């Protein structure tokens, strides 16, 4: 996206010094913003390597040597909850959720794009209209529904609704319009491919890049989701990481426990996403930009 070659504009002779001053300021600002973005993570990492005594004693900008002992304590602590259990729970929900949300969004986008049917326009506009409705406003009815069908403390209410994700649908629809020519589908049909087979074996592979991007976003969104899981799950062995963070916060005053362990628990709950991001940041940032080009 940044590789479009613009011709340099505004080449006045007297501009050279102004330009270099502007560049210096730009870099100073960028460094400032970098510090702003990273200082809290830096503190988190440093503090996760220090012992409780060191943390109580004063701040240090340099790491200490208690990383693995903090990790061991945080990993094995079962007093409030078990962190590895929370990581597993969050992972299962996020992994299943991101798979079905991308698959069914692609399927819906394919249906609206490829076929002609009476309610096509209505279906598309309906999804656009409901795209911005916050999940919180239907929470009352959702919680009652979940209780009525006795699915509280299960993960179904956190996974099944991912089938209907209007924003992912919208992204896939934008993408399918530019990547999937109808001729390809007609050709497949002439060759005797069934409609589902055409979708699964011809359309889906063409949509792979878009689906990968949306999968990452859906995974992260689910991993970080706090509101709905907190309403559905109250058994501590089923808690997800965000619920554990909230519990940690509510207990930290009364418990006055090991601060090194607290920092380690926070680190463990964000580190998987950060690692994934470091590998895939190029695609993620590009994905955001593509989603942005709509207005």
């Amino acid at each position: 996206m940044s590789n479009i070659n613009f011709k340099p504009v505004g080449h006045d002779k007297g501009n050279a010094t102004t330009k270099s001053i502007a560049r210096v300021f730009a870099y100073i600002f960028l460094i400032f913003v970098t510090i702003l973005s990273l200082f809290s993570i830096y503190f988190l990492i440093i503090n996760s390597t220090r012992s409780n005594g060191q943390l109580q004693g004063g701040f240090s900008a340099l790491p200490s040597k208690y990383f693995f002992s903090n990790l061991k304590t945080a990993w094995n602590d079962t007093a409030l909850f078990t962190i590895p259990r929370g990581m597993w729970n969050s992972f299962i929900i996020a992994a299943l959720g991101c798979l079905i949300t991308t698959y069914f969004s692609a399927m819906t986008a394919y249906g609206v794009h490829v076929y002609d049917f009476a309610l096509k326009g209505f279906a598309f506009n309906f999804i656009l209209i409901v795209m911005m409705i916050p999940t919180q406003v239907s929470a009352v009815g959702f919680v009652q529904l979940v209780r009525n069908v006795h699915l509280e403390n299960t993960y179904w209410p956190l996974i099944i609704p991912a089938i209907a994700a209007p924003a992912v649908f919208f992204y896939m629809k934008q993408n399918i319009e530019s990547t999937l020519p109808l001729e390809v589908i007609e050709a497949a049909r002439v060759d005797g491919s069934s409609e589902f087979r055409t979708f699964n074996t011809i359309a889906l592979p063409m949509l792979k890049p878009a689906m990968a991007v949306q999968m990452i976003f859906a995974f992260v969104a689910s991993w970080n989701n706090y509101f709905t899981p907190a309403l559905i799950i109250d058994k501590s062995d089923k808690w997800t990481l965000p619920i554990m963070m909230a519990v940690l916060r509510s207990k930290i005053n009364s418990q006055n426990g090991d601060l090194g362990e607290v920092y380690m628990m926070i680190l463990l709950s964000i580190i998987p996403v950060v690692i994934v991001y470091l590998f895939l940041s190029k695609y993620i940032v590009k994905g955001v930009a593509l989603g942005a080009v709509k207005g």
Partner: protein
Amino acid sequence: MKRKSISYAKWGYIFIAPFFIVFLVCTFYPLLSTFYNSLFENYWDASTFSQVGPNFVGLGNFKKLFTADAKGNVDILTYTANTMIMWIAGAIPQLAFSLLLAVIFTSTSLNVKGQTFFKTVIYLPNLIMAAAFAMLFFTLFSNVGPINQIISGGVSDKIVDFFNNVVTSRGIIAFINFLMWFGNTTIMLMAGIMGIDQSLLEAAAIDGATSGQVFRKITLPLLSPILVYVIITSLIGGFQMYDVPQVITSGLGNPNRSTMTLIMYLNRFLGTTKNYGMAGAVSVLVFIITGILSFGVYRSIVSGRSDPKPKKSKSKGVL
């Protein structure tokens, strides 16, 4: 693209069926039932250990929501104001930073190196779990945390009690929101700026416009649709503010309920009292507010799509 589609109408319905069935069951029906609930008195009375209702009370719950307490306070108005204050305090620096960053990244005369690194860094906070971020800031800014250790230098009466002060509590929450979203907004605005026809900027530069003039007179007006989009979506997000203040204040909205947001209020009704009636009424209000705002977003998307070349802004009324 507007070629005739293949007439296999029934397959169209089959392909969109899973989405619509799940949407109707998991979102639409709960939404309607939330509205329905708002008309009933229905809660668990913890003092008498008994269930009250459901009794039909019409708009009684809404009346109750807007009734002042003994001190003349209307809770829902206070919480709406809290939400908006914290949103604005985060959104203003968010827009200012994003605009500046977007201009820096797209400027050909600055030709900034290391763009990928900077973009990666500023987008990172957006992916971090809000609940963990809130917990982290709580420990960093607590009375025994590193920020206070730096400020006070070990002198106990120099400690700043960040979470007992309205301005600093709200400030920290707004700051986290800002931190989490300015990278995202930057990328949105960059996409907008790069969609602007470069020949306009070149023409203005040849005519002797300074870079400041080009920005104010050309870039900004052409960017306004995407700016409006960014602001409205941010506002909708603002009304949903929940994770950060909920975790930082452990659901209490302290100090003195000054950081209690609308959704925290809604969540409180869903707690032990299971007050579905009042929770429903708060939901309806949030729905109406965000609904009006969403309609603006919908309109901007629809008008953007009907434009044959949505990426290239036209020079309508400019120059």
